[in-house]
């Protein structure tokens, strides 16, 4: 197995981009990543594209070939593969790219993610997102995606001493970080009161506990570490790539408030990288809802179950804390174009490790990403380090 490095990154501004099509989005992100790595298209050996539901969002399947075509690679006949694992599609596309380079099957690989979510009515978006869970036995009876995470929150708050204010502080922190990120959908700070007085979506979760609906794309370029310095002075090494699965339906989990797939993927990643939690300087976690960030911090192993609310309140996870969590603003403030999110997490960690994160720069040698599909049926964890 070869060591793998990230040699280029690109990301669109996230938001409700009425004037941008699906094609505009991925072309913009891809071009930025190629420019960053000083590459031209014909040097690309393979593409992996994370996308959850172009079929339902823009009525277009066969995304792999479409992207290769519009990237000008049809004449090169460059292999291009769509990767789907609901909201973890991006993280999984990155993992497929890492696998391709590590195995020696390809040298220069693009791992990208794209989602265009605002071309359909909001009710249809809610329904499409519900298909990340069990359509037949959850969605059919009326369980929405926020509703499933709300049931995690109800269970969690019944068993552990998490307060409504602590939960709100997750959103407050992520908006603070988003306000310092030029690609974030929401670049303004909010107060606890903004969260607590926003409308209920599914009790106890309110509008400001939920990540928004977002258009956006992100792309990164991978290469064997041994040749990475040909393309960049600041290669970032992939120290671990781990993935785990669990039951598709929340009701079949061992424990409603623990994402066992996060626990498994985290353990596998730390084992691969031969690192421990104290080596991690920052983490991008999958905060599709505030409760999801609380569970993620615990299930990744950074504290014991029930403690993440207190940690958030004490500022441990803040930009200037001991373990900054979601310096990008997370899904909550940076936005959540589902298929692109996993790649945007890598984009953020690489910026931080290169020292290019501007107003939200933290002191970091090693960073982690955590990308979740559905309510935890797929989890992808990566560890990246300066090299």
């Amino acid at each position, binding site marked *: 197995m070869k060591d793998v490095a990230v040699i280029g990154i690109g990301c669109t501004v996230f938001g409700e981009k009425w004037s941008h099509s699906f094609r505009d989005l991925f072309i913009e992100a891809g071009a930025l990543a190629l420019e960053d790595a000083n590459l031209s298209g014909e040097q690309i050996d393979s593409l992996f594209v994370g996308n959850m539901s172009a079929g339902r969002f823009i009525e277009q399947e066969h995304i792999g070939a479409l992207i290769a075509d519009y990237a000008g690679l049809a004449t090169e006949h460059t292999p291009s593969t769509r990767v789907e694992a609901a909201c973890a599609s991006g993280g999984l596309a990155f993992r497929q790219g890492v696998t391709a380079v590590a195995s020696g099957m390809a040298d220069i690989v693009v791992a990208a993610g794209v989602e265009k979510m605002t071309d359909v*009515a909001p*009710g*249809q978006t*809610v*329904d499409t997102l*519900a298909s990340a869970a*069990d*359509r*037949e*036995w*959850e*969605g*059919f*009876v*009326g*369980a*929405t995606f*926020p*509703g499933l995470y*709300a*049931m*995690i*929150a*109800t*269970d969690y708050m*019944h068993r552990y001493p998490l307060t409504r204010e602590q939960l709100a502080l997750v959103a407050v922190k992520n908006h603070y970080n988003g306000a310092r990120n030029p690609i974030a959908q929401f670049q303004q700070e909010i107060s606890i009161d903004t969260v607590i007085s926003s*409308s*209920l*979506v*599914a*009790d*106890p*979760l309110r509008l400001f506990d939920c990540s928004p609906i977002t258009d956006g794309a992100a792309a990164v370029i991978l290469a064997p570490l041994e040749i990475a310095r040909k393309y960049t002075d600041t290669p970032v090494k992939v120290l671990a790539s781990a993935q785990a699965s669990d039951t598709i*339906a*929340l*009701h*079949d989990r061992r424990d*409603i408030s623990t994402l066992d797939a996060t626990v498994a993927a985290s353990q596998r990643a730390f084992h691969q990288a031969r690192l421990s939690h104290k080596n991690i300087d920052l983490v991008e976690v999958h905060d599709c809802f505030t409760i999801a960030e609380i569970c993620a911090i615990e299930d990744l192993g950074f504290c014991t179950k029930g403690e993440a609310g207190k940690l958030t309140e004490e500022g441990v996870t803040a930009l200037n804390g001991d373990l900054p969590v979601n310096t990008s603003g997370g899904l909550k403030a940076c936005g959540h174009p589902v298929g692109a999110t996993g790649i945007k997490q890598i984009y953020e960690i690489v910026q931080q490790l290169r020292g290019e994160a501007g107003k939200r720069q933290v002191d970091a040698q090693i960073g982690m990403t955590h990308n979740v599909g559905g309510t935890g049926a797929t989890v992808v964890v990566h560890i990246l380090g300066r090299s």
Partner: protein
Amino acid sequence: MSVARFWRKIPQRYNLVGTRCVTCGRYYFPPRSFCPSCRREGKIIDHQFTGEGSVVTYTIIRTASEQFENATPYIIAIVQLDEGPRLTAQIACRPEDIRIGTRVKKVFRRLGTEGKSGVIHYGTKFIPA
């Protein structure tokens, strides 16, 4: 959901017919034709659940997908049946009458209407016992 896709699961949806693995004794609802515990050694038979259980966790849905937009607000819960398995279902009661641990029993109810075609779906909901 298409008529055939719904109709295929009518015994399960209307009457809580699930499955049981004779090899290990585990009960499954929603039904499984393959025992995840015994895998190839499992022998699966149908099982009619009593429909009594208790609430594990719940929420009140305020923003729904198109099919349920007219039904909001409504309660969704994970119910643990007395035989062991858990399922997701609507609880037909007032929000103030549900707690974690509330005892519930199954009832046959209208679940929703399919878009413009107007097909009405029925299924199992629960009410406080």
